[in-house]
């Protein structure tokens, strides 16, 4: 076993609990996180030589509290707090039970949630929320976060300290949102989690494996949220959506690095364990019997693909209906384009064309090569090959990569041959 990785693993397990417990002591989540980091630095120095302590949580808490006393001693202005903390700290540094500091097990869940909500607080920018969540909730180091976002460590360091300052200046309290606030605040949290997932899953840059770690991190955060907020359907829906997408990681790239489309993917390479877990989460979301949210609808669509043993067995009627629901909830030409594809497969070429016509004037669609590619599919189904060939040629001009351009030109030539 690698000792540094072991220390990091223990840290990951304990860090969020430690930040929460120290926040209860110093009443400032930013300061608490700094103190926790100092405790971690001490662990990295001492544990490799002395071994991992019997009770690492208590060890970290003791060091964290001592650092708290040091810091506040230095800052005379906070003398009143020093008295408060000195009372809690045993002279000579006896072990303090961190569970006593953090409260009961049940309380801990609320505390962890409060930590997530403060990390994703609306006073912070979107990128700060993402960085702070990875740091405070997931226990990642500045370097790890910087690697994941492909920016220098200094940038992330500054982003995190600025975010902490913003929270302190805005005097954001460390508490759960009220029932009224919850929907909007939860949406902000889920947005951060899904942003992290997509940052990893879409892998628009950087080494794939690093990015995939980020997607794993997002799924882990999502699963933690389902444990803390079991009655919120969209939390389950988001976990299902992420896991269903991630289940196809291995199958979506071919042996020569080429992209493999859903229709052609080797479904035996889909991760069945993730799919099983995801479909359970999807069921939970649905069984909570609330109007289906956007994540749950998208997960349900992905679930239709996951359940189909072959592409031909795909339940396109169900997918078309789910896209219609999604379109009503979050209207967008891209959703409509997807709905048109589903309708085409469900053998409603006329209906698909109607949907495409309705978004034809949208400026995004006019520059989007896939719009033309889909429209050509529909036209060919209707026997209108000449028009299809024209669409494909136009789409080829818009294609972002040479690979796609070539494919579209080939299809254009094939369509023209059938006229």
């Amino acid at each position, binding site marked *: 076993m690698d000792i540094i990785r072991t220390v990091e693993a223990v840290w990951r397990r304990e860090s969020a609990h430690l930040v929460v417990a120290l926040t209860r002591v110093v009443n400032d989540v930013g300061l608490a996180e700094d103190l926790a980091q100092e405790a971690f630095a001490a662990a990295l120095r001492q544990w490799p030589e002395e071994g991992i302590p019997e009770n690492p949580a208590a060890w970290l808490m003791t060091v964290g509290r001592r650092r708290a006393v040091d810091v506040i001693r230095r800052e005379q202005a906070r003398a009143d707090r020093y008295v408060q903390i000195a009372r809690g700290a045993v002279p000579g540094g006896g072990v303090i039970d961190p569970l006593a500091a953090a409260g009961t097990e049940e309380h801990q869940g609320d505390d962890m949630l409060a930590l997530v909500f403060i990390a994703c607080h609306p006073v912070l920018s979107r990128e700060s929320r993402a960085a702070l969540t990875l740091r405070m909730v997931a226990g990642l180091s500045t370097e790890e976060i910087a690697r994941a976002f492909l920016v220098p460590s200094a940038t992330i360091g500054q982003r995190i300290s600025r975010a902490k300052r913003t929270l302190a200046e805005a005097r954001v309290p460390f508490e759960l949102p009220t029932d009224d606030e919850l929907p909007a605040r939860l949406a902000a949290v889920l947005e951060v989690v899904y942003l992290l997932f997509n940052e990893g899953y879409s892998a628009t840059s950087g080494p794939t494996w690093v990015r995939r770690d980020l997607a794993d991190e997002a799924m882990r955060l999502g699963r933690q949220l389902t444990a803390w907020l079991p009655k919120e359907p969209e939390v389950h829906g988001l976990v299902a959506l992420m896991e269903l997408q991630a289940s196809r990681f*291995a199958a979506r790239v071919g042996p020569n*690095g080429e992209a493999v*489309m*859903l229709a052609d993917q080797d479904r035996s390479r889909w991760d069945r364990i993730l799919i099983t877990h995801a479909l359970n989460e999807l069921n939970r979301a649905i069984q909570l019997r609330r109007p289906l949210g956007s994540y749950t609808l998208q997960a349900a669509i992905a679930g239709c693909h996951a359940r189909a043993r072959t592409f031909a067995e795909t339940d396109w009627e169900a997918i078309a209906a789910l896209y219609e629901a999604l379109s009503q909830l979050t209207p967008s030409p891209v959703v409509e384009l997807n709905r048109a594809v589903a309708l085409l497969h469900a053998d409603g070429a006329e209906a698909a064309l109607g949907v495409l016509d309705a978004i034809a004037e949208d400026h995004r669609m006019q520059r989007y090569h896939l719009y033309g590619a889909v429209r050509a599919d529909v036209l060919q189904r209707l026997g209108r090959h000449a028009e299809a060939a024209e669409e494909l040629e136009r789409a080829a001009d818009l294609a972002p990569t040479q690979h796609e351009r070539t494919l579209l030109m080939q299809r254009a030539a094939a369509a023209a041959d059938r006229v």
Partner: protein
Amino acid sequence: MKVMVMVTGTPKDEETAVPTTEMFEAMAAYNERLIKAGIMLDGAGLKPSSKAARVVFEGGKTSVVDGPFTEAKEIIGGYWIWQVDSLEEAVEWAKQCPTDPEGRYGALEIRPYAETEDFGDEYTPELREKEAQLAEELRTQRGEAGSASV
């Protein structure tokens, strides 16, 4: 990474070591921690080997051996599937597992899943990243839900 954690014990303890209410409670609390840490994907307990069978292939012959497997050195009693960052992380979680109060032998064997990603040496990160981006775009075309499509 995904790991399978196999819970093993000795055949002689299999029938005799009946878990107490305290042990069940300790295990439930441990499972709860695994779930709240977001690492648990699956898990189950298995019936004792007296209810099991083994199909053995040797020297071109196939034979069936009914349980209990008294000759076996270790018997698998259950398993978990965890998603963790490293083998070290799995080890640290495994070390927190409640143990037998009477000190009977038990072991958790942690086996990482073979990932298809492991085959990836032949394609460069640059290639992969480019193609993954393309794949994302093509997903939209194929009527799949996803970030790019909403």
